[in-house]
């Protein structure tokens, strides 16, 4: 672990709280983008402050074996998002609607048709993602939106890497049914919503 790693910084902040501010400078932009994606700008800004305050209060529980605090901060932010389900529902549905309405690329080749089909699916994708059990949805979004690795998600959510894998597989299987419907009509959310399965 080199000098100036996040772990060093957190260790210094145990005695000298202001050092924790440096951790904000390193990671706040990324955490803010994640929070805004999930709950919108208003709740996102609130939760950004909460994430770093909660992180500070819990900094002695940070595992210094991890050089980067990035997954740990994602974990705190994800926990805080859980109390903002309504904001998240609104946010994701609105984005899907907008993305669905964006102008189609010109042409009628296979690619353009496929792109148009995919856009038409987006509101249903949003519904399906929102209908996933919370644990599966968090895992999926950290992977697909935030590009966290399995190992980083495991650290963030404090679960074994195997559980990350099984949650992702389950979420992707659910969503895949959207892409290969038996007919061209879209499956309804009721058909693709999972049956409330949860990790044990």
């Amino acid at each position: 672990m080199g000098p100036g790693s996040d772990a060093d910084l957190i260790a210094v902040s145990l005695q000298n709280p202001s050092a924790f501010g440096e951790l904000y400078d390193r990671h706040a932009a990324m955490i803010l983008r994640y929070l805004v994606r999930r709950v919108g700008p208003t709740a996102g800004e609130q939760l950004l402050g909460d994430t770093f305050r909660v992180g500070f209060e819990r900094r002695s529980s940070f595992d210094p074996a991890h050089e980067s605090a990035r997954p740990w901060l994602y974990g705190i932010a994800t926990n805080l998002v859980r109390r903002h389900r309504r904001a998240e529902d609104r946010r994701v549905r609105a984005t899907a609607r907008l993305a669905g309405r964006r102008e189609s690329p010109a042409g009628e080749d296979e690619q353009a048709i496929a792109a148009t089909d995919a856009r038409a699916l987006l509101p249903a994708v949003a519904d399906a993602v929102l209908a996933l059990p919370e644990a599966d949805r968090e895992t999926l979004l950290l992977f697909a939106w935030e590009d966290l690795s399995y190992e980083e998600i495991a650290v963030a959510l404090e679960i074994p890497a195997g559980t990350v894998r099984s949650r992702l597989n389950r979420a992707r299987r659910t969503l895949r049914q959207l892409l290969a419907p038996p007919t061209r009509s879209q499956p309804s959310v009721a058909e693709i919503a999972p049956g409330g399965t949860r990790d044990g």
Partner: protein
Amino acid sequence: MDELDLVRKIAPDDEPDDFVLERGRADLASFLRGWQQRTGGAEPLRPWRMTAPGRVADQALLDVIEHEGYVVLEDALAPATVESVREALSPHLGAGPFGRNEFEGFHTKRVYSLPAKSRAFDPLIEDESVLAVAETMLGPNFLLTAALAIEIGPGETAQGLHYDEAFYSLPRPRPPVSLSTLWAIDDFTAENGGTLLVPGSHRWGDEMPSPRPEVVPLEMSAGSVALYPGTLWHAGGANVSDERRLGVSIQYVVSWARQQESYLLAIPPKAAREVSPRLRQLLGYSIGPAFMGHVDGRHPEKLVRADR
């Protein structure tokens, strides 16, 4: 295009707002300065989760409560005891009404006055570890003031922040006059209504929690108990899970304060004969220094015995 591409397409792609980031940085700096001033920079003791220490109040345990405002004792109850508590509550919860106002919760059921209903709750009320902490915190001859079960149902919203002894109109900051304990009969999670605690708020003076204070959801497995002084700000959490969450709140108070529940009416002398002498003391069949609680100049215990 696979399903992950579709999920990526519904991600809002706003760039982080520099102004928001700067404001957040200034807020954090001010929070860190305030924290340093409040605590003198001392690091809170860890761990705040401990195993039940037994008869004597462990100094480390008291230190954690002093620093953090709460402590969780894990595995304080045997699974069989947890189940007997659940069984004893089930007829009352099945029949019982939901709350009457936002504080009680329209999706929440409460069963009050537990020692009048079953002996199954006595191991919780008379838990040695808890009583040792209460004795140290509240002094001798402390009393039981509330014993109720709280079942938070799916869809319940978070309670307003409060502290349990707010109705004793004594200026703050000050030492607590009561000790609250919260026993997990179901696992407490952030999703199912795990109590939201404001760490360190037991030291507050007249401060009120900000609209979005730093709260910690109380997460603990069934059979664990959380202890916190009656001065700590907290709120019942929202239950966004699809299951009910059962907990038992047992609260103790200094010998000179009025109890919330009128136990001498709920458990009159004849019924009091059936409970342990320790529980009788806690209910109020006892004398606080020098003669608080006497009956016609006599110790109330004599009334219990005379009623044979």
